[in-house]
């Protein structure tokens, strides 16, 4: 018998989690449940084949999980890591898909789509490293604050810049990455280890 592939699901909303478990079990996966980021990092020890992780969670958010795992486990590169984010419209999401991006899945979740993405990531392995993409110091600073949930205005105060300048940098990064929203840009760069959330 082939062992069912383990999927580590890190999600704090019980309604969503229930559905995730139901759908994944039905599709023949073995879901491992974690209700927040800290729990998620702990359960990485069960050697999952892929990780689904919510961005907005108490105690430790999705970016924190990614960073903690990257620090403690080198093999993370070979394990597909998919973010679930509620910050993004359908149009944004479609746009991101067309650009060939599947690092994140937007809420409201389309479970069929989620399973399809998961399957393809599991068969093709983690995505090959994309061509060189670098951030300037300023961009890295701003995007780090974005990943910590700060608004342009707050970032402006923190980095001693005008809000307009912050928006300029963020839009610049979004364009270069070919993503649709700032959270998606932060996800991309966090996955590549370009920022330290």
């Amino acid at each position, binding site marked *: 018998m082939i062992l069912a592939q383990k999927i580590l699901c890190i999600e704090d909303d019980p*309604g*969503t989690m229930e559905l995730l478990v139901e759908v994944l079990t039905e599709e023949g996966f073995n879901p491992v449940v974690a209700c927040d980021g800290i729990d998620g990092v702990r359960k990485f020890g069960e050697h999952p084949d892929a990780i689904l992780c919510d961005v907005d969670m108490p105690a430790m958010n999705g970016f924190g999980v990614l960073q903690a795992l990257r620090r403690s486990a080198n093999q993370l590169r070979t394990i597909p890591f998919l973010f679930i984010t*509620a910050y993004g419209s359908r149009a944004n999401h479609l746009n991101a898909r067309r650009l060939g991006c599947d690092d994140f899945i*937007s809420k*409201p979740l389309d479970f069929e789509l989620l399973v399809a993405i998961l399957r393809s990531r599991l068969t093709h392995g983690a995505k090959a490293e994309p061509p060189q993409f670098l951030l300037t110091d300023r961009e890295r600073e701003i995007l780090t604050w974005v990943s910590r949930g700060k*608004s342009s205005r707050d970032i402006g105060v923190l980095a*001693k810049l005008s809000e307009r300048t912050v928006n300029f940098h963020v839009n610049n990064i979004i364009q270069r990455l070919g993503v649709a929203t700032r959270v998606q840009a932060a996800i991309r760069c966090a996955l590549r280890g370009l920022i330290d959330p």
Partner: protein
Amino acid sequence: MRIYKPRASLMGAVLWTLLAAIFLFDIFTPPENVAICMAYTVPIFMSLFEMRPRALFYASITTVLSGLGWLVQSEAAIGEVLVASNLLVAIVFQWLVAILVRLQTQRFNDALERAETQRRLVNVLSHEVGTALTVVTGQASRLVKLSAQLEPSNLKQRAEKIRDAALRIDMIIDRIRFASFLGDGSISIERGAVNLHTLLRQLKEQLEDENRGRTIELDLCEEPQVVNGDEVMIRQMIENVILNSVKYSDTLGRISVSLTRRVGVARIAVVDQGSGMSEYDLARVIDPFYRGENSRGVSGTGIGLYIVQQIVKAHKGLISIESALGVGTKVAIDLPQSTKLAQT
């Protein structure tokens, strides 16, 4: 991470240099050339490009400099009165420009503020509604897929989950609508005698009932406290504050509500031992749709305290919030006592 030093000093340096240059020019030109004082309006205009424009501050500086320039110069050929009146015109101009710059800055900041509120609204909506919709669409598609084989009880359970999620979205929209009505003043406020003793006792009972296991301590002063206002709104206001305490403290944390009498006002204070807020969040917590660091993963719209503040304002009251991370939060609301009714 690298910390950047402020660059604001660059523009400041340019402005001060300009001011000094104009002052020197003023001194070394003949005294009747008061028109040079008009040049002071240039740095005032340029202060627009500062991080935080201080037009009025520069106007006071230029006024002093203009005066100094006049004092240090020798007698003018055209008579002191004429020079003085010319100087006055120049100073009036400096202040006019400063006020213009000030107004423009204000307008710009207001526009930024509105854009920021809107952005937060979109964030809150997409997050809260997105989470609820996941349950709606997810459960609905499960129903479609499993329709043939589901037990009636399971079916009922799923339908209830869909309904609850839909009601949650409805509630979010209701709150946002209520807040926006309050904000633009299009809600009328009923006026009547509100007995805070009765209201707080009822509220304690209701909230303890709704949040099983939570006890809310009440500490009421002896003499009855009556305020003139809208009972429904005052109830909503206190409820919002108490529910915040319930939301951001664990089940063992104490929540106490006290009512005390101060000079001319009744003070309602809600104290908890919850997660508290940083100074940064505390400064912004009343802004509509603002959600602090500790609210991550806790569902909500970031609008509760904004509603509280609007209701307090409508009753000519005052609100103050103190908070410390990991220690707790204290919200105090002062409402003017109803003089007419207190006597009876």
